């Protein structure tokens, strides 16, 4: 370790790792400080990456040149493409991962990253001079200087775990928390709050009667998360298992309510509504007599299972007694109980889109410290913070993704514009333009942008260029190729769609829901020749082309809508504007606008409490 860095990243979770990797790969000298070198990129909760909306984020991180996708591909033990029956914008890759391999692979990649040093310690304090961060001070009393600092503290700031009446200070099971740093930030003027999240018990697989559970297998067809990988090297995947609670289980759980920190007022902070504890589910949905649970394997070489859906902070005895009433878990033994954890977060409205804080220059926040949940959401913020810290040092313009460019753009814009009132998780419905934000085109959306910064490598661009070139050829072929009725009508009726009466273009045939590009191959010889010309990534290219053609109308409509908003994005609001002087704004709007300091009219219009009338006032003020 040196005494002077360009970027210090505090915390080596998913946000910290992506931040450190991106800044270092861009050429900054980076120091990653973590409490425990053996816990790098821990999957603290669910041993899975991706899922609906989250899978798209992992693809985006990868397209930008991050590591999350590569690590997932290396550590997955089950793959599923969720929502395959829906439109292509909804297809969402999800992988169960080997928790240990995941962590080790991350460490290995970071160790191979140039310009990146590690230091095992705890940051107690950041050093601020003239409203600008210039370094950190650690628990060991060491002062390390740096041009920028990225805080990715996760749940460790004043972390407090609850299991029934038992309370333990710490950031994760058997790991200490961090105190002092929050208080310092509070003193610097940051608004802080408390949030709550929880995790379920981990079970011993040897004690589970899997015969009684419903098996959930992975897909045969495994799609890599990383655009750099053409396939995933995974032996036959592992399965998850579905179990159900019952009225009997619920009754037992209810006996623990009196001692529950959730209900006796001990836990005051807000947990996520979409990921409630089992006890919350019993209260909120009292009429449901059973809830679904998933036993997810934690790794190839371990018997540990994660019980998804059974997050709880009830007393351990109650948890165990209830578990043993579940069919299949009659003799279950656990490795550890579920628990709830409360931690400090900082109102993300105090950040710019670059993730830099408005109060302290060159200080960046990323991940759960901003009130989000999820490895994917954390990694996304991390990579953007890392990029921007590097750009700031080099006096370059900040890197911000728009809402029509990436889920990452939606995520960060939501955070800095709306703030959070519960742990923030991504959903596809948060995106206005989700038909544009698909898992199949994150590379097309983002890789060139990142390559311009110097992050996404040329190898990536080479693959992308090949893919877009071949895809373009296919699309062009469909646009130009005419088909005669006698050529195709037999096939059309086989596929259950009406025959054509005159010669039409092939693109109008592929637009029909019943027609698949693949099934056209035996019918059209020239198409077969065209496909045989594709040497690598044929399935990926065919899929991308098919989506583009089949959903052309929807994609174009969404693009048109996005362009409308883009015009508002271009109406910049000068930094010096004093909202309190604009008496024509409602009081609430003045407050909110002053707090968020939106950079443009479109962002202003998204702030809750800013009405269309307020936006009109701004437009008039700006002379529109």
């Amino acid at each position, binding site marked *: 370790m040196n005494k002077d860095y360009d970027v210090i990243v505090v915390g080596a979770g998913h946000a910290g790792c992506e931040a450190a990797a991106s800044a270092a790969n861009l050429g900054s000298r980076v120091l990653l400080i973590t409490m425990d070198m053996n816990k790098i990129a821990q999957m603290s909760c669910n041993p899975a990456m991706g*899922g*609906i*909306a989250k899978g798209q984020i992992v693809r985006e991180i990868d397209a930008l040149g991050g590591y999350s996708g590569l690590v997932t591909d290396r550590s997955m033990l089950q793959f599923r493409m*969720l*929502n395959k*029956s*829906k*439109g292509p*914008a*909804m297809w969402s890759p999800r992988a169960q991962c080997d928790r240990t391999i995941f962590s080790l692979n991350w460490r290995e990649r970071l160790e191979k990253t140039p310009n990146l040093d590690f230091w095992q310690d705890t940051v107690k304090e950041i050093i601020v001079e003239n409203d600008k961060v210039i370094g950190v001070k650690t628990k060991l009393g060491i002062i390390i200087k740096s041009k920028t600092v990225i805080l990715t503290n996760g749940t460790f700031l004043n972390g407090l775990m609850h299991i029934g009446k038992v309370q333990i200070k710490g950031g994760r099971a058997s790991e200490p928390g961090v105190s002092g740093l929050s208080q310092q930030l509070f003193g610097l003027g940051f608004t802080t709050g408390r949030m709550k999240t929880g995790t379920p018990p981990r079970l011993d697989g040897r004690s589970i009667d899997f015969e009684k559970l419903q098996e959930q297998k992975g897909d045969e067809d495994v799609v890599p998360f990383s655009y750099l990988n053409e396939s995933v090297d995974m032996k036959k995947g592992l399965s998850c298992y579905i179990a159900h609670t019952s009225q009997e289980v619920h009754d037992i759980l209810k006996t623990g309510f009196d001692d529950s920190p959730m209900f006796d007022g001990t836990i005051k902070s807000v947990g*996520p*509504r*979409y*990921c*409630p504890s089992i006890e919350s*589910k019993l209260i*909120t*949905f009292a009429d*449901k007599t059973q*809830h*679904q*649970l*998933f036993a997810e394997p934690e790794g190839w070489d371990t018997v540990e299972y994660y019980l*998804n*859906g059974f*997050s709880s902070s009830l007393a351990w005895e109650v948890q165990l007694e209830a578990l043993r009433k579940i069919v299949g878990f009659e003799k279950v033994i656990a490795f550890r109980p579920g628990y709830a954890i409360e931690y400090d977060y900082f109102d993300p409205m105090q950040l710019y889109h670059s993730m830099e804080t408005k109060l302290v220059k060159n200080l960046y926040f990323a991940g759960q410290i901003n009130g989000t949940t999820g490895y994917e959401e954390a990694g996304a913020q991390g990579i953007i913070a890392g990029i921007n810290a590097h750009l700031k040092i080099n006096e370059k313009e900040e890197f911000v993704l728009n809402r029509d460019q990436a889920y990452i753009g939606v995520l960060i814009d939501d955070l800095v514009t*709306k703030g959070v009132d519960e742990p923030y998780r991504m*959903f*596809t*419905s*948060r995106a*206005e333009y*989700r*038909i544009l934000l698909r898992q199949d085109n994150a590379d097309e959306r983002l890789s060139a942008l990142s390559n311009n910064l110097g992050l996404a490598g040329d190898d990536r661009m080479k693959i992308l260029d090949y893919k877009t070139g071949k895809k373009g050829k296919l699309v062009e072929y469909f646009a130009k190729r005419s088909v005669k009725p006698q050529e195709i009508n037999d096939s059309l009726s086989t596929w259950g769609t009406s025959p054509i009466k005159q010669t039409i273009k092939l693109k109008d045939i592929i637009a029909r*829901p019943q027609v698949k590009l693949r099934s056209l191959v035996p019918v059209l010889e020239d198409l077969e020749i065209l496909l045989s010309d594709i040497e690598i990534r044929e399935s990926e290219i065919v899929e991308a082309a098919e989506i583009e053609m089949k*959903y052309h109308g*929807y994609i174009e*409509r*969404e693009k048109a*809508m996005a362009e409308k908003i883009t015009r508002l994005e271009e109406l910049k609001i000068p930094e010096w504007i004093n909202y309190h002087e604009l*008496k*024509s*704004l*409602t009081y609430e709007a003045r407050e909110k606008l002053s707090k968020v300091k939106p950079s443009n009219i479109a962002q202003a*219009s*998204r702030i*809750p409490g800013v*009405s*269309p*009338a307020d936006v*009109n*006032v701004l437009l*008039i003020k700006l002379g529109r």
Partner: protein
Amino acid sequence: MNTIVAIASAPGMGAIALIRVSGEDAVRIVGRIVLRTSPGSGVRGPGSEERSPGSREKGPGSEVQGPESGERGPQSPVPSPLSPLPPWRVQFSYIVDGDRVLDEVLLTYFKAPRSYTGEDLIEISCHGSEYIQQEILHLLIRNGARMASPGEFTQRAFLNGKLDLSQAEAVSDLIASSSKASHQLAMDQMRGGFSGEINDLRSRLLDLVSLVELELDFAEEDVEFADRSQLSGIVEEISEKVDSLTRSFHLGNVLKNGVPVAIVGETNVGKSTLLNALLKEDRAIVSEIPGTTRDTIEDTIQIEGILFRFIDTAGLRHTEDSIETIGIERSYQQMEKARVIILVTDPTAPEEESLEWVKAVTKRIRDDQSLIVVVNKGDLVEGPGSGVRGPQSRVQSPQSDVRGPGSDSRLILSAKDGVGLVELEEVLLNFVTLRSFEDHDVIVTNARHYDALVRVQESVVRVRGGLETGLSGDFLSQDIREILHFLGEITGEISTDEILGNIFGKFCIGK
């Protein structure tokens, strides 16, 4: 923002006129041209709050009546700085231009932000002569105010958060409303009746979009997803609501601008006489010569607060006269624009001829139009016992007479003598009130709202089509979001947080 001034009362001469001054300099500018004591008393300025003995001015807040005559004060009165001018009180003052006293006025000062515009606003009630109004206006402008552009007071009220957009729009409607009904509409709008309706629509949409989004974002969850027929049911409800609102626009427009009534009939059956009788003035040129009315003439009357716009038309007859032919063509065109058509017939004319016209006109009546057949010249028909039975006997009570679109009623009257006019008015009134108001609680009057609703309708059609063809939810949702967007253009934005909140509230999420 600079200070604006305008005459707020109607143009022309009345007993009193009102001039409004609004802006941060309003007090200062008005202060330069007023003198709040008798020009001769020598007491002026801020001190004038204190009533000086001998001053004839009454205290603040009193129903001031000033000195009897404005012709006084030759001793060079100096304008007073008007501070402190007590707000929200009527103040008697003189308007002075240098040495010259222009008028005696009443001032009311509305202090910001508690004024219509949200700015300092002063209302000057002066005498109504055009000369005085103009002089005061010019005086204010010379002292730093600027002539307001049309609607600028309301615009400022809007900008200062005193009114929201649809309220501001309603204010302009309110000012322009010329009948009880249009006034009622504008008032409803201003009080937010329309917003209530839109909000109701939004909550239905929110249910719909939540159900659609549920199966997208939470496909992995253990929740029951809505089946397509359930979604279709909600879409139907929404569709009906939107249709009803868009339809009401035509009605709203009619009420705002007056119900167009076309009076048609053969030449010389007395259409113009009827119009004049209704208007109670000689509006159309009436003569014994058939075909006198070659141009359509429009005028309005109010019956029970509803505005009717009457269109007199050239007589219908076959003619060689080219001008007359154009007139007849125009009559038919005017008929198309009308909602109610009064066909006037002449009982003295050959019966077949009348019937022919009735047939010809009836053929042209659309579903949304109503026809009233009036047998005019009741006075020419023999004695009360035979021909002209009292209108009451032929015309049943208006209530029962009013039927759905396309129906007609028939009554006998004498336009010349004014017999049966009251009954005709009643019939007219009932055509509008019964048919319109009861169908719609809320009526869309604003073109901007109407445009948004038409766009909503288009999207609803696409959603319905998508449901029928089994389109995936992500595409359905594109259209539903568009609907929410257009509704947002009317009231305010919907955020995706609302959708998620709705989902979390209703479904058990979290596997």
